[in-house]
């Protein structure tokens, strides 16, 4: 056990047991998986990406590049989970990943001996011969070796949700700077959200043995938290990572609601996505401790100096029986002393600088200070380090080495909207450049490293944000903090012979790889990144990027500032895709819209089909019918011979009123509506301004200044939006009012020769005779005992037919009444399939023909277009291409051999023509088996089709093995004169 005897913010009174790679261990509440593993002396936790080198834990936070595990089991398995951010819970199960057969013995580690061949970009130069082997051999091998963890192969069983929050000031991070900012803003009354990714507030304050005011820094954090918790205008969100900065001062954040539990609490989500809309943001995200590149720097046991100290101070864990530090800055030096204070056996602090400011304090604690550089390490897990000094070299035994090359401000969120960091020579670090609107940066994230500056900049930023917004900010009362020096001397890379010196631990990018990229001309930082994959791993190079750039700068002889830096993009840390989807998965991916008669249709045994968000009855199988075609044939026959009923409520319906309604319709339809008589309906076609058909439907005139329009189901919203555009933008002088009535009305169609007989029984006495309600007539009356209704005598099927619109709440009652009234005639419910067959038999165009590529002329509707007026799309429908003879025109098709089946999607070729694009003459859009005719029929577009009626062409369908001769015919297969619908 490496648990120190006392100290740390873990609850030693309670023990949690957990397992890693099958062995059982114990930890305490307050531990992370990483601290608990270290406490149990587990140092080897994973294997690296390319060379499968043994790796341990290097950080104590979300920047962790190494200690990635598969957490949980079965469908809940989460690959690539950073042990350093997993809050320990009882029963936790984790396993190492990217190793085979075992973590201790990984065969793929042989890769490291091949490293001379596997340098940066090696794959671009090889595996090309023979080319067929790429997919068959090389790529599968590369793929199996690459990747990290394994996804669970099953649907995620947990629930996610999204939530919205609004505030005046969002503070990101709850270290000294964040707490000071939240206090300053919160005390003014501004609405503040304080988001902290850790499960405990305090940031570095939890890990540093320093004083603020009269007490330990931790106490300050606790007191600040208590005060903030007491302010009603402040909301503290722990376990919440702000992952992205977006336009409109919108921030994305993810709250890990249930990740610290074995399974999420009942009825609570696993994670919650927050969209936070704020006026101001104070970024107080701290800084990362970055490594120094030296040979052997990836040995398990080599870690960040601050992390080593954090494990000791916050978790009461010594990362090894003995430890040493290798640093170039005071902050890490102080952390080393904190570690010693906490009880870690510190052998030595190796500092590259001649006189570290804190040397005296170290000596006082009995810690040796060596001026020099670590040049080598050894051991499967670290057992010794070799230091090069002015006097020569020295090797000594240690189990842990804390390394720090300085602090890298955590400015990740500042670049999400295009800001570029700038290099600060004095700090040896990139600091934020241009900021997203409304953002300020405080504390270490801004390069204000000393604790006092963190408090000061935080308080200032919080106060400024609130006062900017008009809040009266009380004079910030910033406590005094113990001053620690913040000296640093630039130092990146120990040039020494020997083993691998890693820049990017996770992607196995070495200093040699950077040199190779330089040699091959991939010198721009973005090219360096892409050629070597530096910074592209799951940690996004939070700790490694700067050293990589520094090495490239050294090679090119340019400064680091000139060399520049790659940018961070959202998310700050990887975000579960489940959280980004929230509630919207499975059946809840999108709303399901039932029609008004859904329940009734269910009772009738309907099979349903998706139509956009709607669910419509597709057909109504009867007992004994075991394929859909039998049912559909029966339904079609019923309509043609007697009567059928279908729910047509999904059509878009728009109410148009106002003195200019008629004139308006004249401008949006190709045909004329202002002359339509009151009480009559007319079929209309609308174009887009580019001359292509947008939609079709009927509009009826209910009064001089009142029309009602129907649109296709698919285009309901689009047409409404278009009409509003015409009214509000194109012709604001027209006095027309629109209202969507799609939801208010159920619309039930009754069709077939006996439909009038049924209607007579359904209406409350109104005269619906042919004379009173002729074809295309409209009647407002009541039905089924007082239900207000509009009856339109329309026909999509070609039969005598009516569409009855009633308030949607009464739709079910109406259809039941119709069924009852129709019983004597064997009234038959039908669905979308039969609707399709009926309209294909009749040669009516529908969605497959109105595909956004066809003009009115193409559809055979050119004659409808008025030549007496302008309308949307008229001018551009007159372009030369639209008038070409050769354009595919709407016609019908039937197989020469009537037993053959037609297929939508077949293309037409002249008989004997080569199947080439050049010979392509059109395509079949819709087909059906016509029970009325007893054979398959089709609709489609054929070059110059109208003129070729009677010709034979090939319907070529190679993708389904079809190639049949078809006869071109008029599209109206049934009742071409339209006598039935008028009868």
């Amino acid at each position, binding site marked *: 056990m490496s648990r120190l005897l006392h100290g740390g913010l873990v609850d030693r009174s309670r023990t949690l047991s957990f397992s890693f790679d099958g062995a059982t261990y114990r930890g305490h509440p307050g531990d992370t998986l990483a601290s608990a593993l270290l406490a149990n002396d587990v140092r080897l936790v994973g294997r690296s990406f390319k060379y499968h080198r043994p790796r341990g834990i290097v950080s104590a936070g979300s920047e962790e590049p190494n200690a990635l595990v598969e957490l949980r089991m079965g469908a809940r398995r989460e690959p690539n989970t950073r042990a350093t951010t997993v809050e320990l819970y009882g029963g936790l199960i984790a396993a190492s990943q990217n190793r085979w057969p075992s973590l201790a013995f990984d065969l793929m580690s042989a890769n490291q001996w091949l490293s001379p061949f596997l340098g940066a970009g090696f794959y671009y130069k090889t595996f090309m011969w023979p080319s067929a082997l790429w997919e068959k051999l090389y790529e599968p091998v590369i793929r199996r070796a690459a990747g990290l963890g394994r996804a669970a192969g099953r649907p995620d069983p947990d629930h996610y949700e999204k939530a919205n929050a609004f505030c005046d000031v969002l503070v990101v991070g709850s270290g000294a700077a964040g707490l000071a900012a939240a206090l300053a803003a919160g005390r003014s009354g501004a609405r503040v959200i304080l988001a902290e990714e850790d499960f405990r507030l305090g940031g570095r304050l939890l890990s540093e043995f320093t004083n603020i005011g009269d007490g330990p820094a931790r106490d300050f954090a606790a007191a600040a938290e208590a005060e903030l918790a007491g302010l009603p205008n402040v909301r503290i969100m722990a376990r919440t990572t702000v992952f992205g900065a977006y336009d*409109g001062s*919108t921030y994305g954040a993810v709250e890990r609601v249930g990740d610290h539990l074995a399974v999420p609490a009942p009825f609570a989500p696993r994670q919650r996505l927050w969209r936070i809309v704020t006026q101001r943001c104070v970024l107080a995200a701290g800084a990362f401790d970055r490594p120094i590149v030296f040979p052997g720097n990836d040995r398990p046991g080599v870690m960040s100096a601050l992390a080593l100290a954090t494990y000791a101070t916050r978790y009461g864990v010594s990362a090894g029986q003995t430890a040493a530090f290798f640093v170039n800055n005071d902050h890490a030096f102080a952390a080393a002393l904190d570690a010693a204070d906490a009880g870690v056996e510190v052998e030595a602090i190796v500092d590259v600088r001649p006189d570290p400011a804190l040397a005296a304090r170290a000596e006082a604690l009995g810690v040796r200070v060596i001026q020099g550089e670590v040049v080598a390490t050894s051991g499967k897990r670290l057992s010794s380090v070799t230091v090069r000094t002015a006097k020569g070299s020295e090797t000594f035994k240690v189990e842990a080495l804390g390394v720090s090359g300085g602090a890298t401000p955590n400015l990740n969120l500042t670049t999400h909207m295009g800001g570029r960091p700038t290099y600060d020579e004095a700090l040896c670090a990139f600091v934020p450049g241009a900021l997203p609107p409304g953002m300020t940066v405080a504390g270490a994230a801004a390069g204000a490293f000393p604790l006092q500056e963190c408090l000061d900049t935080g308080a200032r930023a919080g106060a400024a944000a609130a006062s900017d917004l008009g809040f009266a900010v009380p004079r910030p009362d910033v406590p005094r903090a113990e001053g620690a020096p913040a000296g640093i001397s630039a130092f990146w890379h120990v040039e020494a012979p020997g083993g691998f010196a890693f820049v990017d631990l996770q992607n196995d990018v070495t200093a040699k790889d950077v040199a190779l990229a330089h040699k091959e001309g991939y010198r721009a930082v973005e090219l360096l990144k892409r050629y070597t994959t530096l910074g592209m791993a799951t940690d996004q190079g939070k700790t490694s990027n700067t050293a990589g750039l520094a090495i490239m700068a050294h090679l090119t002889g340019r400064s680091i500032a000139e060399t520049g830096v790659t940018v961070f993009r959202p998310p700050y840390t990887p975000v579960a895709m489940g959280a980004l989807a929230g509630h919207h998965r499975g059946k809840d991916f999108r709303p399901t819209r039932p029609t008004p008669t859904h329940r009734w249709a269910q009772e009738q045994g309907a099979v349903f089909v998706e139509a956009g968000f709607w669910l419509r009855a597709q057909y109504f199988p009867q007992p004994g019918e075991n394929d859909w075609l039998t049912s559909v044939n029966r339904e079609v026959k019923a309509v043609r011979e007697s009567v059928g009923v279908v729910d047509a409520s999904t059509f878009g319906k728009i109410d148009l009123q106002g003195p200019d309604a008629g004139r308006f319709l004249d401008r949006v339809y190709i045909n004329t509506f202002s002359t339509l008589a009151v009480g009559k309906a007319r079929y209309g076609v609308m174009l887009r*301004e*580019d001359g292509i058909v947008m939609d079709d439907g009927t509009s009826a005139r209910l009064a001089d200044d009142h029309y009602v329009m129907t649109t296709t189901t698919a285009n309901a919203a689009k047409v409404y939006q278009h009409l509003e*555009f015409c009214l509000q*933008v194109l012709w*604001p002088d027209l006095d027309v009012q629109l209202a969507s009535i799609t939801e208010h009305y159920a619309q039930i169609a009754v069709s077939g020769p006996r439909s009038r007989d049924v209607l007579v029984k359904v209406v409350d006495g109104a005269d619906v005779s042919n004379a009173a309600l002729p074809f295309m007539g409209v009647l407002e009356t009541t039905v089924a005992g007082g239900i207000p209704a509009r009856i339109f005598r329309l026909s999509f099927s070609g039969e005598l037919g009516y569409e009855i619109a009633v308030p949607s709440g009464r739709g079910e009652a109406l259809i039941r009444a119709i069924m009852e009234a129709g019983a004597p005639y064997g009234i038959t419910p039908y669905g979308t399939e039969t609707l399709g067959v009926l309209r294909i038999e009749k040669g009516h165009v529908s969605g497959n023909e109105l595909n956004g590529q066809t003009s009115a002329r193409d559809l055979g509707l050119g004659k409808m277009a008025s030549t007496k007026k302008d309308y949307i799309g008229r*001018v551009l429908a007159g372009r030369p291409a639209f008038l070409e003879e050769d354009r595919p025109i709407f016609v019908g098709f039937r197989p020469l051999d009537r037993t053959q089946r037609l297929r939508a999607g077949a293309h037409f070729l002249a008989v004997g023509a080569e199947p080439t694009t050049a010979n392509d003459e059109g395509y079949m859009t819709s087909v059906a088996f016509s029970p009325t005719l007893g054979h398959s029929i089709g609709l489609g577009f054929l070059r110059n089709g109208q003129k070729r009626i009677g010709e034979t062409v090939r319907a070529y369908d190679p993708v389904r093995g079809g190639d049949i001769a078809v006869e071109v015919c008029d599209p109206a297969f049934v009742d071409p004169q339209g006598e039935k619908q008028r009868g």
Partner: protein
Amino acid sequence: MRIPCPYCGARDAHEFAYLGDATVTRPDPAAPDALDTFSAYVYERANPEGPHDEFWYHAAGCRRWLKVTRNTRTHEILAVAFARAEETTP
């Protein structure tokens, strides 16, 4: 991105449908060169970098067409107004 709708207040842009360039106006359909002017109206765009006048429709809100001036480089919204000038407010 949030668009301050003059009626509804600031809303996330995903409540709106975008149409694009609001500087073009429907030409005279009766003019002899209508084919050219309509082609230009429908297809040709300045596509500027910087301030851009554009149409947005508040589809999930008040269903008004808005004329928004937005910087296409920064996404800053510079001005918003109803497309129909004398919108029948209140």
